[in-house]
């Protein structure tokens, strides 16, 4: 049976698309070496619109209004600029409510884009630009450790990794965050209160890598301007041993936390990338695996939720589970030497 895969790998090639949300200008060049803070593309983006019903405001028919409109599509208009004026002893006029650009003018109406802001796209990860996607962005390739998680707040940043945990089930409290951590990415274990997230924002840190987060803090975590990646889940879950080992042994290195929102359809996942020096490009990780003995897996539901183990055997047919349900299952030897039977649908391959 085909298995879902989560990447927690010491050394691999990492290829990632970095795209603007809308069309813009790509500034990076093919084969350019980029750092996380390098701007690779930019665009101007209006989030709001103003629809002016010229015909209604001037009390004329749409055809007449179209003749009275002075602007055309593409014109940049300053705030309060007169867009149309009616004839008469006391002529009424229509003025632009805000500065903006005319995007449509017909049927007695004028539609303007207003509130345009400039958006820049940073490389996010260090590496080499291996492909230009016209008007949208680039593809960057790098090599290093890759640790994927299960939840992210949609932000990205890079910095030096500082380990504030003693063990995989450590809890980060606000009191541990002092000024020496400003600008760092913090390996933080569990977070159980909003004060800790706010204290990290005040420093500010450049990222938090958590094993788990309370569901009640999810909304607050989304509001934070620094990236937050959760490796294992919600509630009080220790960090899985594979991720913890890789992260804790790479403290003091530059890392990138790309806390992408997990989207099972597009395949985007939150992840930590730790660039490492290489002499030859390592292979790219397998995206598809089939359950088989010897594979390293993580348990996605109880018992032993979050634990890493090795598949010892795939059971033939259906296995009756302690819950009473029957399902295809595997015999899994957990890292604590305990052996359990787990339904295949509750396993994801780590590799």
């Amino acid at each position, binding site marked *: *049976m*085909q298995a879902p*895969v989560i990447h927690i790998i010491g050394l691999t090639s990492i290829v990632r698309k970095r795209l603007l949300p*809308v*069309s813009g200008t790509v500034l990076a060049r093919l084969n350019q070496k980029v750092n996380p803070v390098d701007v690779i593309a930019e665009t101007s983006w209006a*989030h*709001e*619109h*103003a*629809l002016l019903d010229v015909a209604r405001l001037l009390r004329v028919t749409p055809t007449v209004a179209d003749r009275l409109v002075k602007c055309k599509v593409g014109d940049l208009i300053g705030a309060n600029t007169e867009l149309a004026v009616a004839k008469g002893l006391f002529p009424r006029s229509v003025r632009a409510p805000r500065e903006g650009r005319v*995007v*449509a003018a017909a049927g007695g*109406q004028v*539609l303007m884009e207003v509130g345009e802001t400039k958006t820049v796209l940073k490389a996010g990860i260090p590496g080499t630009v291996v492909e230009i996607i016209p008007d949208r962005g680039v593809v960057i390739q790098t090599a290093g450790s890759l640790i994927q998680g*299960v*939840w992210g707040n949609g932000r990205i940043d890079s910095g030096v990794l500082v380990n504030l945990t003693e063990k995989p089930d450590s809890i980060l409290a606000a009191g541990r965050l002092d000024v020496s951590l400003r600008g760092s990415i913090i390996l933080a274990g569990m977070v159980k209160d909003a004060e800790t997230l706010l204290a990290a924002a005040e420093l500010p840190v450049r990222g938090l890598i958590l094993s788990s987060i309370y*569901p*009640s803090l*999810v909304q607050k975590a989304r509001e934070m301007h620094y990236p937050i990646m959760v490796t294992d*889940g*919600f*509630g*009080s879950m220790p960090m899985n041993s594979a991720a913890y080992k890789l992260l804790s042994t790479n403290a003091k290195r530059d890392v990138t936390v790309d806390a992408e929102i*997990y*989207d*099972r*359809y*597009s*395949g985007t996942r939150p992840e930590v990338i730790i660039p490492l020096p290489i002499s030859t490009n390592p292979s790219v990780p397998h*995206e*598809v695996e089939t359950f088989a003995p010897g594979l390293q897996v993580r348990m*996605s*539901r*109880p*018992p032993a*939720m979050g634990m890493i183990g090795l598949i010892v055997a795939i059971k033939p047919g259906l296995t009756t*589970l*302690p*819950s*009473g*349900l*029957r*399902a295809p299952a595997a015999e899994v030897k957990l890292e604590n030497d305990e052996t359990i039977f*787990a*339904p295949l*649908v*509750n396993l*994801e391959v780590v590799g």
Partner: protein
Amino acid sequence: MPSSLVDGNSLLAIDVGAANTRAVLFDVIEGEYRFVASGSAPTTAEAPLKDVGEGARNAIANLQKILGKTLLDNSRGLITPSQPNGSGVDALVVALSAGPVVKTIIVGLLKDVSLDSARRLAESTYTSIVDTISLNDLRKPDQQIDSILRLRPDLVVITGGTDGGASRSIQKLLEPIGLADFLLPEEQRPVVLFAGNEKMQDEVKNLVGSLTASLHFSPNVRPSLETEDIDPAERELARIFIDIRKQQIKGVELLETWSAGHILPTAYATGRMVRFLAKVYGTKKGILSVDIDASAAIISAGFNGKSTLSVYPQFGLGENLSRLQKYTTLEDILRWCSLDISKGVLRDYLYQKSLYPAAIAATKEDFAISQAVSRQALYLAMQSARRDFPKNIAMIKPTLTPLFEPILAGGGVLSDASRPGHSLLLLLDSLQPVGVTTIILDQNNLLPLLGAAASQNNILPVQVLESGAFLSVGTVVSPLSAANYGTPILRAKLHYENGAEARLELKYGSIETLPLSSGEIGKLTIQVLRGSDVGFGPGRGGTLPVSGGALGVVFDGRGRPLNLPSDAVHRRELINKWNTTLGGG
């Protein structure tokens, strides 16, 4: 059915669900169509494969192993028609529910009229209504435009205007839609379905036709203020859903080609079967089908000439679970739980399970939580669906579930036939049927596939339905009573075909059973006490034929609506007792 009417074609049905894809073979055995076997594999709509064709091939490959028959050729293409060497199948049909919810904006003139019809129409498939635009909308047109641009809907459903009626107001509502579409990049423009004033179709074409991904028309869902006719628009929406999926997920096109266009949304296929059953087998009571799995809860009901189909992705047991708290409280979920589970553990479960929609309960505690969540999700789905049931239907009390015969139940949670008692108690708790009804488990989740097959072969569904492929759980008697806990509310006498007799006294608050095996028919005489009502009228008893099932005749004396004790310890004791009574243990 004379065998000469059966042309002997084998039919393979593929059900592409959110978590699993199943390949089910129907073939003619001894002159009649039968369900032969099914194979399954994980659905591959998600990354990294993003190609449902792979999951379908894997499911067919597993079916091949079970059958010992070749269905795929060396390049993993489907062999069709069947070959003289026995390989292949003659036809294929597909039911599809996998994929992200279809983000939908509904547009209508008035909130309680056309907008309500638009909502009902949108809810007939796997949509999430992300915004509504109507004359009651206080936003300015530019705010509506910004909302559309921000939400980037996949679909816009427009209703409004009786045939030949209002047109100016609809034009006004169409303006922001057209302008927003104009501003969106071509590849992000929504599909538009216009199901309003049919006289306006040319105008709609002119206003938004060139600005949409595709523009579809269906007959008006509100041809007059008093009349609503959603069925033709539902059919069009089913086609649109498949078109949207073709754009979103690779492999849907391949399945469409393999099936020569016989591909339907799973919910629509289920609805089609329920409509058919209501027409063929319908009595004064309605026919109800419920289905709950990772993608959605689906409630489909057929009444005398009318039917409703409601799809609730928000009550699915997969990726939407983390948002279930928008519709209910943790306390309301925990009231159904047989174990002492804290709110924190439940909240963690909802979020963690949403990360792994395909995961199943392996431990007793996880199972107890999952059953409680399923109950509340199905309960919410039923409550939502009830508001759209027709007004003049058979019922004992308007605030309660109408009278149904039978109730069909399917979906991952309910179809586990190893312990039908668990499924039955879940259904009794969440649907709270009233009166006398038969409960049937669709243990192989065949109903949508039969609905999909009906377009290809109209004999097959009838013969498979009558072949015993569905598991009758039994006849359920649920009296309405206002008695005190422990007070007798009903006496029943069951006469068996062999002349034997069994008696029972039902006390308020308890569940009891009388054995009656599958295939057996009995005569049940009910004497109600203390003004109870089982559908014969308050205080009136009667005699009726009943059919047996895995649990025989089940008497649910817990009252309607079901009020569970507020004391948690007592409540859990009762839940465990009821479970034990029904053999769920």
